[in-house]
């Protein structure tokens, strides 16, 4: 076996009294991929910053980091600079901050080459263009002259990867490289990283909170909790034979896009401990379902629980993970329920354009953004409709149009039986009572100057209900919060708790329709599961209907009855969740589903991905005919020239392809995707 290229031993980092990293050890060999997973605040990023020597001055670091046998901790800055960017390079979550806005992309990469290699300007630029080609930038010679802001997020991340591999590094550290990207772009970037690794033979350290990304990408996995590794092992050991209740809990709390059925997710109770106030003994003890009194005595060391597999739990022998298991065969046909009779929301041929303005002082209109272009769907009593799509597909715009309760630019919106174009003031107020909204970022949607009591009482006062303390306490209890906390401010709560407050506010008036815009995407997985379960049980108990907007298809499959997939302001496919997820008919849905990484290493290894090329086109200038045709794999590879003419010339409308399933594709054809 090869010698490790990077060996980290007993690394600790403290900021003042706060110990952010408490003894991390790992080693990576050439060509190996080590995944580091953990919730936000678990110390993943600080660990990698310490390895790179990029910590702020106040941090104290102890332990050892050896790169090809050379010690980096305590090495002089000059020596570090000769490693950084050469043998050790890094890809960050936010590619924009890694690029200098005022320099051309090609020059920046050439610069990175010239810092570490004695080559001429011309040669460096040629090399830069080669690198851009390698990471899949179309027309690299031309694009090398562009500035970073002229690239989309995904393209920028490619540029950063090109820079990271410019000097054939030994180790590439990727810190959440795809978190800010849409799922089809994420699939492209992961592919690029694999290609880059094959080219350079580098080891990759992949830091992420997404258990799916790690399953398909990593050879070994290190799970971090409260600044320490709590489980280390081969990817299969971690996913199928995990011996640490925290890992098992994480795996149990992710909804699966390839699973039907509604066994409730198992959230991990409570919140991660703050590094300044760790519990004595096992740091996971306050949230652990297997906790016994012996756990509080001392922090468990990493026990050897199998070959190359260690876990920090004194009861590891008793941990029996459910594991992500096998894919439930889609044999039993979609369980189609008859849809409810009463419709709570109807949207017909909704259109919304925004003017595209240019100029800072004197705004000129230089075009039109077709944010929503003739979208139709309906929502019945007691139903959940999931609205999914990549960012910029028009989900939020469609929502706002509904929430405004004004006459739409074109089309018709009927909310709870009332056409929004013909609403009297009294009717509008009445609808505002029956339709409530929950936003993505609970901190932004709760007035920071108001106590929780005032926040929850506001809808009651507005609609002339007595704002009794009793109702507020009831609401808090309903969403699983301590009613005694009504006097606190939203800032005093954690993210998941804040979202519960926002949900409580939405429920204050006993609405019939709840509009949720990405309600769980700002939350950690273990917390997210609790909020999803809450929404699910509230719906059943209170007979609500949900319009649920999300970009996470797994969450939507879990919570929704029906789903509408949006692409560039249009609905690509709509129908019953099981029908659409098991047998998607639109090529876009097929690609989208196949791009989602599953937290299941075996399935990941055997999957064939449908990779989409390029980015979402600008909604100001959508392609003629079918809006998806510029990226459609079917259009590119399966259709004959004659068939393509239809795609180019005629915009497809949603047509039924199954019992409760419709797709906007001339050549729709239901198929299962891996």
């Amino acid at each position, binding site marked *: 076996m090869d010698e490790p290229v990077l060996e980290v031993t007993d690394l600790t980092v403290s900021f003042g009294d706060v110990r952010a990293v408490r003894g991390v050890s790992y080693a990576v060999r050439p060509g190996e991929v080590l995944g580091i997973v953990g919730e936000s605040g678990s110390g993943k990023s600080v660990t990698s910053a310490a390895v790179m020597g990029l910590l702020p001055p106040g941090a104290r670091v102890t332990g050892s980091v050896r790169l090809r046998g050379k010690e980096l901790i305590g090495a002089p800055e000059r020596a570090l600079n000769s490693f950084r960017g050469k043998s050790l390079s890094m890809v960050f979550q936010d590619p924009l901050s890694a690029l200098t806005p005022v320099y051309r992309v090609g020059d920046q990469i050439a610069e990175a080459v010239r810092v570490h290699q004695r080559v001429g300007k011309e040669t460096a630029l040629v090399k830069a263009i080669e690198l851009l080609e390698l990471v899949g930038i179309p027309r690299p010679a031309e694009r090398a002259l562009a500035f970073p802001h002229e690239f989309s997020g995904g393209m920028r991340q490619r540029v950063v990867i090109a820079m990271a591999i410019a000097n054939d590094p030994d180790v590439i550290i990727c810190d959440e490289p795809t978190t800010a990207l849409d799922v089809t772009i994420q699939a492209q970037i992961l592919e690029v990283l694999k290609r880059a690794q094959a080219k350079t033979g580098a080891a990759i350290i992949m830091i992420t909170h997404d258990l799916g990304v790690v399953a398909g990408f990593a050879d070994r996995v290190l799970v971090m909790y409260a600044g320490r590794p709590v489980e280390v092992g081969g990817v299969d050991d971690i996913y199928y034979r995990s011996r640490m209740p925290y890992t098992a809990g994480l795996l149990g709390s992710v909804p699966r896009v390839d699973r039907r059925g509604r066994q409730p997710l198992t959230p991990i109770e409570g919140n991660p401990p703050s590094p300044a106030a760790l519990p004595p003994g096992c740091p996971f003890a306050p949230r652990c379902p297997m906790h016994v009194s012996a756990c509080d005595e001392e922090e468990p060391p990493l026990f050897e629980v199998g070959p190359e597999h260690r876990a920090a739990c004194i009861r590891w022998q008793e941990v029996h993970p459910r594991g992500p298991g096998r894919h439930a065969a889609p044999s039993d046909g979609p369980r189609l329920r008859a849809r409810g009779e009463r419709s709570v929301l109807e949207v017909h041929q909704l259109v919304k354009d925004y003017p595209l303005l240019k100029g800072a002082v004197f705004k000129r209109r230089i075009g039109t953004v077709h944010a929503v272009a003739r979208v139709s769907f309906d929502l019945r009593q007691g139903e959940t409709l999931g609205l999914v799509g990549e960012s910029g597909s028009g989900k939020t715009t469609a929502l706002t149009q509904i*929430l405004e309760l004004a006459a739409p630019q074109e089309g018709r919106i009927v909310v709870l039986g009332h056409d929004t174009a013909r609403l009297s003031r009294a009717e*509008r*107020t009445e609808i*505002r*009572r029956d*339709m*409530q*909204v929950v*936003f993505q*970022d609970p901190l*932004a*949607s*709760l*007035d*920071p*100057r*108001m*106590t929780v*009591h*005032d926040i929850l009482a*506001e*809808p009651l006062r*507005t*609609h002339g209900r007595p704002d*009794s*303390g*009793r109702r*507020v*306490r009831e609401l808090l209890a309903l969403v699983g919060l301590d*009613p*005694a*906390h*009504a*006097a*606190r*401010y939203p*800032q*005093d709560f954690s993210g998941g708790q804040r979202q519960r407050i*926002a949900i409580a*506010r939405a429920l204050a008036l006993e609405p019939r329709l709840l509009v949720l815009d990405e309600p769980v995407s700002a939350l950690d997985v273990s917390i997210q599961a609790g909020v999803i379960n809450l929404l699910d049980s509230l719906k059943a108990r209170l007979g609500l209907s949900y319009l649920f907007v999300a970009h996470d298809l797994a969450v939507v499959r879990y919570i929704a009855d029906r789903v509408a997939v949006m692409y560039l302001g249009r609905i690509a496919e709509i129908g019953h969740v099981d029908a659409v997820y098991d047998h998607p008919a639109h090529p876009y849905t097929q690609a989208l589903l196949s791009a989602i990484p599953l937290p299941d290493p075996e399935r990941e290894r055997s999957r064939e991905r449908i990779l989409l090329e390029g980015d979402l086109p600008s909604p100001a200038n959508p392609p003629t005919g079918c809006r998806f045709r510029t990226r459609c794999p079917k259009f590119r590879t399966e259709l004959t020239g004659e068939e393509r003419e239809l795609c180019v010339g005629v915009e497809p409308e949603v047509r039924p392809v199954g019992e409760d399933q419709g797709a906007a594709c001339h050549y729709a054809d239901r198929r299962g995707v891996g």
Partner: protein
Amino acid sequence: MTLSEEELAEELADGTLTRPPSRARMVAGRFFRSTQGLIGFAVLALMFLLAFVGPLFSPWTYTDKDFTAFMQPPSARHWFGTLQTGSDVFAVTLRGMQKSLVVGLLAALVSTALAAVVGAFAGYFLGWTDRVLSWVTDLLLVLPAFLILAILSPLFGSGQWPLFVVMLALFLWMVTSKIVRGMAISVKEREFVQAARYMGVPPVRIIFRHVIPNLSSLLIVDATLNVSSAILTETSLSYFGFGIQPPDVSFGTLIADGSLTAVYAPWTFWFVAGLLVVTVLAVNLVGDALRDAFDPSSGKA
């Protein structure tokens, strides 16, 4: 979370407190827990007490003249000495303080309130509301305030000081209002305002419940500064003989007179000036503490 909030919360849980603490009570609680706030408030309260209760203990009123003592230094008979006219400095100072405190605080409050309302309405509604309000703001901004106040000064004769307060305030609010308008535009975009709109809260109520409270730091700082500027504007107006008209006095008229004799009769100037400085400082302390009390995230780690 501080202890007493926790206690409040516990009371709440017991059900002994049917109405949980309102925002006003929370803010007051936070305010009085800060040393700054306590000191500022205590000093300011003392000043008011002195200004309104003090004269009861003095044998002289501000209109009395002691023809046996002109320009006398402080003594047992005249605690702060006397003026050239034989007026008792203690009595006139307290009378001046009454006027200045009331005029300064009221003018500051009125002007800040005006700035908040006009700016927030303009920024929240935009459109023609904004155009009209901005036009008024700009108009007042270009009018020569001092000149107009001077011309109108005969109106502020005896008993007409409320008019003076209004006029002072009318020339203090414009710049703040423009800042408030800009900030209101950005607060309007925040999700909690959208949430309130979608909940059906009427726009005017949104402005008063969500927009203005979220600008409270700015407004309180502004009001604090305005107290000083109102007192100082009043001072300079009175210095030139406009503003508060005799026989009434204010800090302004007293400082104007006192400054002439300060060199050889320091008591005619320094008591007034000292009280002015202490007042302004106390107002600033109160302002700082109020700003922190309104902002639940400030002062927390």
